[in-house]
């Protein structure tokens, strides 16, 4: 039994819904109680979808238990087929139906419907949303494309001369972070390389499209979280190679172009030489000097975290002070990336752990999910969202991909925007007692609504933290800072003259310095000694 308040991932059947809702011509019959229909609103409200998810819930009640829940499931399948006339039916159980063991697959098959029926078993008490999406997509691909697979030992017939290479784009789903725009960006990029996109799946594909997946020359795996398992199966069954590089960031996009060029047998030199993204120049312009060494903390799904850490360090000159993921399935990859950045990966889906780590590390920028946005906002730290789970504001009206060269431009803007601009930062430092031009007045380009919480910052100290949220935070930070450390009044006042966006760091450094030197209480002298010791 695990105590949970906010979760990064829903149950695995919500992952199945993301796949089904992204597709066309597929209907999902879910054996579930009425309350589980809440999941519809994720799609209609957060993503503003104009259609209901293609899901029929059996909505069995207590009085049906032990009598006719199986019958109810069959009539729901028959009814859904009649009403929606799908090309294929996906069937499964939610957590409650899993306990009553009605065998949705067997029941649906017994109906003898004239369409393929694909059962998915999603163990709700072990697995979560992303796993559910991956498993569902894999089962759909295996069931629908399986009948046309190459016989064992057979090789693919090589592409005829003069025929443009074709690939599938695998992984995008409903409710995905910028999936809609990434598809367009990558399709355009591949087009520039003379490569056609055969099928995009699950997003936009029909069951018939899935049956044709094997016709493409290779697969582009955009989101391994959803598509890796299916791509591996396609490789075994159709000898279709697939891409490993996820094109987020300028460097990764160039690597991706090289990888794809190899798989497709095309020459991409011209494309690699053209500098299409503005990000490299923006990052080199003198204005960006102030970005140097900004301390960032990165958290989210594995794909976006690994990509974001690379961009932060190599393309913006930040320092990655911590990174992690809630996706245990990809813990190994994230640990490797962390090692490369010289930090220890945080693998956890308990948001309190992540909050504690942020409080402990005092980053200047948090790149995270919806959850970290809230944590950062409360702590007064700048933040940008880089990964699911996301909210309605992460489905912008404008074109805003994360992938490819335009994606890199978008990333530059969204990450740099919350940070203080260079000159403004200096002015604040110089005139920090100006009654209007000070940090609590907020950053002018962000508008007044922004929660600038100057003094909420920082607080490794026990007494300031909120009663519950802080428990792990306390234990995490008390290792480093003895709770009895006190600040002299004038030192505290001096600290408050430091702009809020570096105040947390200054407090933390000073306290560490004081602890190391055995100084207590902290005076103005200690503050400046620490400043000299650590440098900016």
């Amino acid at each position, binding site marked *: *039994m695990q105590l949970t308040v906010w979760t990064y991932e829903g149950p695995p059947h919500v992952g199945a819904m993301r796949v089904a809702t992204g597709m066309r011509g597929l209907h999902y019959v879910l054996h579930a109680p009425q*309350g589980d229909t809440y999941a519809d609103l994720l799609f209609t409200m957060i993503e503003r979808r104009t259609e209901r998810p293609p899901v029929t819930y059996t909505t069995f009640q207590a009085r049906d238990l032990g009598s006719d829940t199986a019958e109810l499931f069959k009539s729901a399948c028959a009814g859904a087929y009649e009403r929606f006339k799908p090309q294929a039916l996906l069937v499964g159980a939610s957590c409650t139906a899993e306990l009553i063991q009605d065998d949705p697959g067997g029941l649906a098959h017994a109906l003898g419907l004239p369409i393929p029926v694909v059962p998915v078993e999603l163990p709700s008490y072990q697995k979560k949303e992303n796993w559910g999406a991956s498993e569902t997509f894999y089962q759909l691909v295996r069931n629908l494309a399986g009948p046309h697979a190459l016989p064992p030992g057979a090789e693919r017939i090589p592409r005829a001369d003069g025929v443009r290479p074709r690939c599938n784009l695998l992984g995008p789903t409903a409710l995905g972070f910028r999936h809609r725009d990434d598809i367009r960006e990558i399709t355009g990029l591949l087009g520039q390389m003379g490569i056609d996109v055969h099928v995009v799946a699950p997003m936009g594909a029909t069951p018939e499209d899935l049956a044709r997946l094997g016709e493409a020359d290779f697969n582009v795996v955009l989101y391994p979280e959803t598509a890796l398992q299916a791509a591996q199966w396609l490789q075994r069954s159709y000898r279709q190679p697939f891409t490993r590089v996820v094109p987020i960031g300028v460097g990764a996009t160039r690597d991706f172009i090289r990888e794809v060029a190899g798989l497709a047998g095309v020459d991409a030199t011209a494309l690699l030489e053209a500098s299409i993204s503005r990000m490299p120049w923006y990052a080199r312009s003198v204005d960006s000097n102030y970005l140097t060494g900004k301390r960032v903390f990165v958290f989210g799904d594995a794909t976006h975290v690994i990509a974001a850490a690379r961009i932060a360090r190599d393309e913006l000159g930040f320092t990655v002070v911590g990174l992690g993921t809630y996706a245990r399935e990809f813990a190994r990859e994230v640990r490797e990336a962390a090692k490369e950045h010289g930090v220890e990966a945080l693998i956890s889906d308990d948001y309190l752990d992540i909050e504690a780590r942020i409080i402990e590390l005092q980053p200047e920028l948090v790149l995270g999910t919806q959850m970290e946005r809230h944590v950062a906002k409360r702590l007064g730290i700048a933040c940008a969202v880089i990964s699911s789970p996301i*909210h309605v504001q992460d489905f912008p009206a404008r074109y805003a991909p994360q992938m490819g060269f335009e994606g890199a431009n978008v990333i530059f803007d969204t990450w740099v925007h919350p940070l203080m601009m260079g000159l403004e930062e200096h002015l604040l430092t110089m005139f920090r007692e100006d009654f209007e031009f000070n940090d609590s007045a907020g950053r002018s380009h962000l508008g007044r609504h922004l929660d600038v919480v100057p003094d909420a910052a920082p607080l490794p100290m026990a007494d300031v933290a909120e009663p519950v949220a802080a428990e792990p935070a306390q234990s995490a930070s008390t290792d480093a800072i003895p709770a009895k450390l006190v600040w002299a009044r004038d030192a505290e006042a001096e600290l408050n003259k430091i702009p809020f966006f570096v105040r947390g760091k200054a407090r933390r450094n000073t306290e560490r310095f004081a602890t190391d030197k055995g100084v207590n209480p902290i005076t103005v002298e200690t503050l400046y000694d620490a400043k000299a010791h650590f440098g900016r």
Partner: protein
Amino acid sequence: MNAPVPTSRPAADHDGLPQRDNENCGPHAVLRDRGQREVFCGLTGIVWLHRKIQDAFFLVIGSRTCAHLLQSAAGVMIFAEPRFATAVIDERDLAGLADVHDELDRVVGRLLERRPDIRMLFLVGSCPSEVIKLDLSRAAARLSGLHAPDVRILAYSGSGIETTFTQGEDACLAALVPGLPAAEAAPAPHSLMVVGALADVVEDQMRRMLVAFGIPNVQFLPPRRSRDLPSVGPGTLYLLAQPFLTDTARALEERGAQRIAAPFPLGVEGTTLWLNAAAEAFGVSPERFREVTMPGRNRATQALERYRTELAGKRISFFPDSQLEVPLARFLAREVGMVPVEIGSPYLHRQHLKEELELLPTGPLLSEGADVDRQLDRCREDRPDIVVCGLGLANPLESEGMTTKWSIELLFTPIQGYEQAADLAELFARPLIRRTKLVA
């Protein structure tokens, strides 16, 4: 159930009370349908109950789905530390590798240690906990033994196999009733209990008026703090502020309380009849009643006027959601002239809704526990001017060119009483006005 206290409400206008137009009202035929129900489960009530009872904590014993539902229903994830959480049952619990009761003790112990401010803890059952027959009442009794007197521990079920949306509040309040202090023996009627969670601002307004009537001992269930539980006993009269409190009413009557039958306090008329039912039960003079209520009634009537212009003649349909549908339709039909087309409700409590149904004009189709796809078919055929529905249906209907009002807002917004009557009408006017403003 005991017979409600007879209140002699004459059909003729009695000291300025709204008149009932019996010719065009009730009885109504009801369509009952089975099929997919597109409704929340009772866990959702936690989203407002945990704000209402300020020292209570709601611990759901359920699955990841339950946790996700609460998170999604809480919408814009209110990131203030909420007073609810889910103890997620995992494989080890199911396989018997861990004793579920030991696990629960551990989780509760840890929780209470972290939240010393909590005085009342609800163990909330879910579908999974019901299906594996986890006895939470027993667990609550055992845990109470461990944590009394600091924390009172109670159990109820908000599971989707047993409760629909607002029924979760019913189950929660019903669980409170056996533990209410006994009222001292006194000549009846000696106290009034208003039952059903109301926004604090509404509660205060109601309290001011009821006290001004001279009613002794006006109490509210649920209270804002768990130490302020109302007392109950023979001689306690109770007045339902919400239409979905079947089990709570039954439990109160088992403690000897008697229901004052009344429509619900939505709109000027509903509020007046509701207050008047209480006034009559306590023998308040008509003069006193007028004096106390007239300022509010006049203000509200006037404020409603402008929405009447916006809303009169507009056709409205309701998808089943909160059980507030009948009182809402009654208000909209009688006070702002809207025309109900279909009134879907998850459950129609014939007795608690008796006064409402008598006021409701005949004409609309009443449906109980509908099949969502078939109701959508009817809705597309009817093409009402506005549809009241859940969040899963709103955008899809809007994209089909229909105007919608999210029903959940009606639970999260103060809508009862005189001062809120116009706000309530505005909730329906806004989407309609908006549609006329958007020309692009």
